[in-house]
């Protein structure tokens, strides 16, 4: 597959002076001995409102602007960042510092390294934002959140909380190869959850996802998810869970809702196909991967229903962009095709080390952090079935929705997920509610047991946003997207108890 975003002019929202600072930093890094350098000036606004039990709890606004510079000396990298550079001198000092750090890296050197070629682009990209979230009156946003939490609280839950967030990020990128790229991305999201307390237990329900739904969109996303329409339902379900029977333990047929599938893809596929992990660059912290590069193109990852794409071009998805943070234009790529592993998330250096011809998945959490291999939108293409068909075809199984806990080993093999709610499935019918549903498995074995895949019904396949993907040292929080639909798996162990 091959699609790409339309490259346009530098967005007017990106300050021209930001390019001057980035250019000065790159020039200083080159003058200090770097053979390659790039610089980003990032200006990010963030706004969040939280409500609890009918009252606004927090209203927070942040502005973070700064300069981050990468310098490559020989085969050693250095990165330096400075908040709010005051002018050319600050920018040049930061560029020179990046080169000095790279020289220090050479004290413990690695093998020779090159960068895969990327045509230097001069242009820009903006996400589509129909309604600027920062222009929506704070009072209106606060009223939405207080309203839904008041509704849930009145319905009898112990705790009701809701959250809205928005980011406005303007980036000027300059490289020593001649790239000059401006991007303006607006991201918006919201969600709500409630808790009920029983005798020694806590139950939780959330909507539309356990941390909310997010996208590279404006406030129209918040209006579309329509929190008020779901507040009573999740409050009622949360209370019903207290008296529901426990999810049984044993091996069974498992049907997962689309939101839970998004985290399943994120954890057991997305992270596993990160090339820095595969190469061992994350061995001490994030971990490695069970995938072996020598099997790229031949390894069976899952059943033939499994088609996973790396696609930063999906309109409105949270992992979408025009260019990654080393200036590579966004392009869609296969990661798994008919169950066979065929692609990775790569950067210019890691791709060169691996002998692969493509990069495009390097991103940074703001100006102060080093760009590194990150997920963009890693999603499972829709299948030929519907959720109703899956349930109707299941004699004995469990249907689970909405993530509650997640854990996976450092090779991305052994996972265990807990969900908020489950239902017994008997003779093709969704039966009684089950509490504390959980399941566990081994990645490739689990994916090879995928025997039905939803998405055939309108609205079943959605691009879910994950605004809290942690990776890197110092720590970085990534925003990723995962298009998924409900799916069915056979012979899965459920009901793991502590």
């Amino acid at each position, binding site marked *: 597959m091959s699609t790409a975003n339309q490259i346009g002019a530098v967005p007017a929202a990106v300050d021209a002076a930001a390019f001057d600072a980035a250019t000065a930093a790159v020039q200083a890094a080159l003058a200090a001995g770097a053979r390659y350098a790039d610089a980003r000036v990032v200006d990010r606004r963030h706004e969040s409102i939280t409500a609890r039990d009918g009252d606004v709890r927090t*209203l927070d606004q*942040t502005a973070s602007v700064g300069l981050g510079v990468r310098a490559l000396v020989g085969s050693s990298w250095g990165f330096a960042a400075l908040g709010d550079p005051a002018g050319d001198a600050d920018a040049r000092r930061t560029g020179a510092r990046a080169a*000095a750090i790279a020289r220090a890296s050479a004290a413990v050197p690695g093998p020779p390294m090159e960068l895969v070629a990327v045509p230097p682009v001069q242009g820009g990209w903006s996400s589509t934002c129909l309604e600027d979230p920062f222009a929506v009156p704070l009072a209106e946003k606060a009223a939405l959140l207080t309203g839904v939490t008041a509704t849930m609280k009145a319905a009898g839950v112990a705790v009701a909380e809701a959250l809205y967030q928005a980011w406005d990020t303007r980036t000027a990128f300059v490289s020593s190869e001649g790239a000059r790229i401006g991007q303006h991305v607006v991201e918006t999201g919201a969600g709500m959850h409630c808790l009920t307390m029983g005798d020694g237990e*806590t139950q939780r329900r959330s909507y539309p996802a356990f941390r909310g739904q997010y996208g590279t969109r404006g406030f129209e996303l918040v209006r579309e998810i329509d929190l008020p329409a779901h507040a009573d339902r999740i409050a009622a379900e949360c209370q019903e869970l207290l008296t529901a029977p426990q999810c049984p333990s044993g091996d069974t047929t498992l049907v997962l809702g689309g939101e839970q599938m998004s985290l399943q893809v994120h954890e057991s596929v997305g992270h596993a196909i990160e090339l820095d992990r595969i190469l061992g660059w994350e061995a001490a912290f994030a971990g490695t991967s069970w995938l072996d590069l020598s099997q790229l193109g031949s390894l069976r990852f899952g059943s033939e229903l499994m088609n996973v794409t790396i696609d930063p071009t999906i309109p409105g998805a949270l992992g979408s962009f025009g260019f990654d943070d080393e200036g590579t234009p966004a392009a869609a790529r296969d990661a798994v095709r008919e169950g066979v592993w065929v692609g990775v998330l790569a950067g210019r250096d890691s791709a060169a080390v691996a002998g692969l011809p493509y990069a495009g998945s390097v991103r940074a959490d703001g100006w102060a952090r080093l760009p590194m291999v990150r997920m963009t939108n890693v999603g499972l293409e829709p299948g030929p079935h519907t959720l109703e068909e899956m349930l109707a075809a299941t004699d004995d199984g469990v249907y689970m929705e909405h993530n509650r806990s997640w854990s996976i*080993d450092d090779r991305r093999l052994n996972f265990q997920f807990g969900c908020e709610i489950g239902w017994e499935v008997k003779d093709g019918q969704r039966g009684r509610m089950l509490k504390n549903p959980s399941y566990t498995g081994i990645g490739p074995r689990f994916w090879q047991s995928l025997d039905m895949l939803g998405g055939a019904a309108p609205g079943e396949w959605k691009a879910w946003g994950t605004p809290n993907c942690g990776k890197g040292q110092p*720590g970085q929080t990534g925003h990723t997207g995962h298009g998924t639909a409900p799916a069915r798996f056979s012979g899965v162990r459920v009901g793991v108890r502590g």
Partner: protein
Amino acid sequence: MTADLDALAAAVLGEVRRQAGPAAQATVRVEQAALALTRFADSAIHQNVADERVTVHLQLAVDGGRTATAATTRARPGALADLVAATLAAARLRPRDPDWPGLGTPAPPTSAGSHDPATAEASPAERAAGVAAFVEGAGGLSTAGFVQTASLTTVLADTAGRHLRGATTSAIGDGIARLTGADGVARAMTGRLADLDCAALGARAGAKARAGVDAVPVDPGRYAVVLEPAAVTDLVAGLVSGQFNGKAVVDGTSGLRLGDQQFDPAVTLVDDPQGGVGLPFDTEGTPTGRTELVRDGVPVGLTTDRRVAAALGRTSSGHGSDVGSTWGPVAGDPALSAGDGGTVEELVAGLDRGLLVSDLWYTRAVDPKRSVWTGLTRNGVWLVEDGQVVAPVSTLRFTQSYLEALAPGAVTVGSVVEGQPTRLMGPMGYNRVAVPALRLAAWNVTGNAAG
């Protein structure tokens, strides 16, 4: 990078008075942070970063409880006026916060923090030397990890007249050595780079990796365990974030029973910012003293900020943070007291049959009330029989209540306390947890490499 933090704080308070009037209540916190981290993999430095910033935080309350918070890295006069204007506009638009606790009462902090200039000014070459020492210490094995130095200076001022200043530094060495599928780990966190012995860490990680080759699976089930300090760190982090966190008590998700003999008498836990790498005051300006959490197995304390403290009818313990409204007030420098169990080897010698666990990974709460967590072992597990390590074991999944793991009669506490890095709520990325090894009567292994 040098900035006059006191002048910045004064400028913001001046803007507050000018724009919001004398009745407005405001707390300004100006942070100057520098963080440098050198990462290595395959025994080579592959990522090497440094960043510097000044961040101005403002909390503003008008009309007796219309509150808003804001922060910016733009620390110039015009930007500060904009910061105050935007925060004031936001505060005036929102409803009154019925739980707004107001500003704190002025109280002097108990120290100025522990700031080591040599650590604050450590060069990339010094961090690279630490990496080289770790690599050499591992004796030829492939290695990966990082060396970090960080410094933080904070000035806090408010409209009630408080003006506080504190500073701290920290240094971390953390790495693994790798040998044919086996990883061994060693890590340490101190307040001074000079106190890190990266060569010793490398040697320890190398020895662990060599002892972990040819691991075999064991069946799921309940095992007695000896948890090394790295693993105990996770257990303590889980308890302080989920159980002793005052917000969890307010919400009802904590299973703590204050005053009951809920833990083994050998367990004594405090939060001790002065003994760790914490600042002398929290984000609300409350002094950060020593907070007793468990005394001889009895839970006796909680961590609170002003809002949570008011809800519980207490005074703040000094655990306010920028993320407290979401995650609650959490101990930043927890310390588990040493016991009489001796070294790790002596704890193992007292085990008839069980497991020696180096490290835990990707632990997540399954049942908050019972503090049931699932996660995996990492960087080495060994089968112990008759007090002797008999075989390395492959990665295991557990699903275990941390509260029940420390129940009366279940715990022997080691005698050697180590400072370990972990991620809690620290402004510099990592917190320091001081813990000994533990021997626990039962640990619920629920899966292995086969599933």
